[in-house]
């Protein structure tokens, strides 16, 4: 088989764009579907509130759809980015694939995550239509914060597309894919977890609307901690992109970066979701009993910190693979 640089370009464009748009769109679609299903269920129970419900659902889907828009923008860039002659070939193709992986996986998590608050807001509006404004604004804050992992992923994808990767032969192909994978996969869990947190906060607020400020504060702190695995993944991908000039130009260098990416990327999924589960229940509990909010916050922080320790082990393994071995 004759593989020319031109072939590599096409492979990279098609694979990268399909990863970005396929995965990124999939997540947002699932999230929007959750919101729509909940809105339908609520409408069936209370048909008189259909206009409120429709507005809430559309707002939630519109705000929750922005990860898919990031994915669309990056996917179009991947498809139509002008070829840089100096990097054309396998390295160029793997930059495109890396960008696609980053933005696809990252936006998948945030897209699904944004569906949780939208769904809870729909059922909350059906129960208590008078408080729909406050509920909708909490939902939008939660969704905006749940999108921060996908924003990290978009930043890394844009860096991959517009900055030259270190030129170390086959290893730079590995570096590009690995940087994308570590960022994308590690943003998946935090995106989902932040979304679950926001869903819990919206549910708590719809049941106990008087403790809104405490619920929102707990939610924001919980989401900030949920983002920790994404920050680790971003750290590793930046290290790969900017500091690996002396990587071995062999299969060892390639597998080094890939192994580090798999460790920190896949390892970030579980802790992200776990942290989300912790802060979900703690948001609900602090909405229910706002007088014990300091205690709830403390317990939530300890629980989240301990459930993140596996993400930290993954970071350590990645750093050891990159710097020690």
């Amino acid at each position, binding site marked *: 088989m004759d593989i020319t640089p031109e072939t590599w370009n096409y492979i990279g464009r098609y694979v990268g764009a399909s990863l970005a748009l396929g995965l990124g769109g999939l997540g947002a679609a699932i999230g929007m579907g959750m919101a729509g299903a909940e809105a339908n269920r609520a409408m069936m129970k209370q048909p008189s509130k259909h206009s409120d419900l429709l507005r809430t659902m559309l707002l939630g889907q519109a705000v929750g759809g922005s990860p898919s828009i990031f994915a669309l923008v990056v996917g179009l860039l991947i498809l139509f980015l002008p070829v840089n002659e100096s990097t054309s070939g396998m390295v160029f193709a793997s930059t495109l694939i890396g960008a696609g992986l980053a933005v696809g996986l990252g936006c998948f998590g945030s897209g699904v995550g944004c569906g949780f608050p939208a769904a809870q807001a729909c059922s909350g509006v059906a129960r208590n239509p008078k408080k729909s404004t406050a509920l909708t604004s909490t939902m939008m804050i939660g969704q905006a914060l749940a999108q921060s992992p996908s924003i990290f992923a978009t930043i890394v994808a844009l860096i991959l597309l517009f900055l030259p990767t270190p030129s170390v032969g086959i290893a730079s192909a590995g570096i590009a894919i690995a940087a994308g994978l570590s960022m994308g996969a590690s943003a998946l869990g935090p995106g989902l977890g932040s979304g679950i947190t926001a869903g819990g906060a919206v549910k708590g607020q719809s049941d106990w609307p008087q403790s809104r400020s405490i619920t929102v504060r707990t939610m924001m702190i919980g989401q900030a901690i949920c983002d920790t695995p994404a920050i680790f993944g971003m750290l590793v991908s930046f*290290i790969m992109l900017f*500091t690996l000039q002396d990587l071995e130009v062999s299969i060892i260098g390639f597998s080094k970066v890939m192994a580090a990416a798999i460790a920190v990327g896949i390892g970030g999924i579980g802790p992200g979701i776990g942290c989300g589960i912790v802060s979900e229940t703690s948001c609900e509990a602090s909405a229910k009993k706002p007088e014990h909010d300091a205690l709830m916050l403390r317990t939530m922080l300890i629980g989240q910190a301990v459930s993140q320790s596996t993400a930290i082990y993954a970071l350590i393994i990645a*750093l050891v693979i990159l*710097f*020690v071995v």
Partner: protein
Amino acid sequence: MVTINLTMLVELILFLIFLWGTQRFILTPVLNSMDERNDSIERDIEKAKDDDIQSEELELKYRHEIAVIRRNADEELRAVKQKAMREHSDFLQQERINAETAVEEVRVKAMAMMEAEREAVLAEVPELARLMEAQLTASARISNNGGSH
């Protein structure tokens, strides 16, 4: 990036010095002052509670005295009022008796006058009857004469 060297030991020593200094020069005086203030506030609260109890006792006493005074005053007032009422009612009684006597006199006088009038009218009645009878007889006689024609 993740090189571990002598810095670790230096950091540990620096932090221990910081800890010692903070405890010795900052936290101990602050905690002492806070405790002192708390104790003095507690003492003040105790004192205030004592004062409160005392003032309550005094208030009770004053209230008792006021009650006694008020009761005396009430009694006096009632006595005065009763007396006044009694005088008042006596006076009213007297007046009523006087008025009734006067009314009786007037009534008796009026009755006597009425009796006299009736007597006078009754005395005039036979005279009138005789007059009317005479007139009637006369008129009957005239009609009989006229009727024979």
